[in-house]
């Protein structure tokens, strides 16, 4: 069963705009991770935020975590056409059970 659910399912924006994707989860977590997947490829880890952190930055990526609401958001600033991909949040139910949501398909139009 899925643990995280991303919202929206699909997002289409113009190059240069910001993209915000949200993730909700159901159980207590140690950390929450965001991954990116280009079409037909494996997932690539983007950023990990621990349960005692509220915000984390990596380049043009900003991730927030609200454990009281069991939600997280991923913000991509100044988007580029190369950011077109699917983005997934993932949380660990147990040490070896990372659960992924269905993802947000982001399309950045040049």
């Amino acid at each position: 069963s899925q643990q995280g659910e991303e919202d929206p399912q699909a997002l289409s924006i113009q190059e240069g705009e910001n993209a915000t994707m949200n993730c909700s989860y159901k159980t207590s977590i140690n950390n929450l991770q965001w991954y990116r997947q280009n079409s037909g490829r494996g997932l690539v880890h983007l950023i990990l935020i621990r349960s005692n952190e509220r915000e984390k930055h990596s380049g043009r990526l900003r991730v927030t975590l609200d454990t009281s609401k069991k939600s997280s958001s991923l913000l991509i600033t100044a988007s580029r056409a190369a950011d077109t991909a699917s983005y997934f949040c993932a949380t660990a139910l147990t040490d070896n059970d990372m659960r992924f949501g269905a993802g947000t398909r982001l399309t950045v139009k040049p």
Partner: protein
Amino acid sequence: SQTIHQWPATLVQPVGSPLSLECTVEGTSNPNLYWYRQAAGRGLQLLFYSVGIGQISSEVPQNLSASRPQDRQFILSSKKLLLSDSGFYLCAWDGQRNSPLHFGNGTRLTVT
């Protein structure tokens, strides 16, 4: 540096035929290894994970099995494929609990 290799990239197999997908990791020892399946436009479903040689945990009852004959080798198998086994299969590893997963490039399996 660590790398993960997964092959083949694509595979078309008839119903009832056997399956063997292989995954190997280089540059690390005693990794945790995982097999996920992804249906079209969907998230990932954890199929199997292994914390050591010969140790396999299965998440869902299914037509598939996994084996770990060597520390850095993980194999996904089936004796007789079903149409419902079609999908995108991803192998992944991590070095310790709650650490990021590193994925292979996947195998697109089509059962006809």
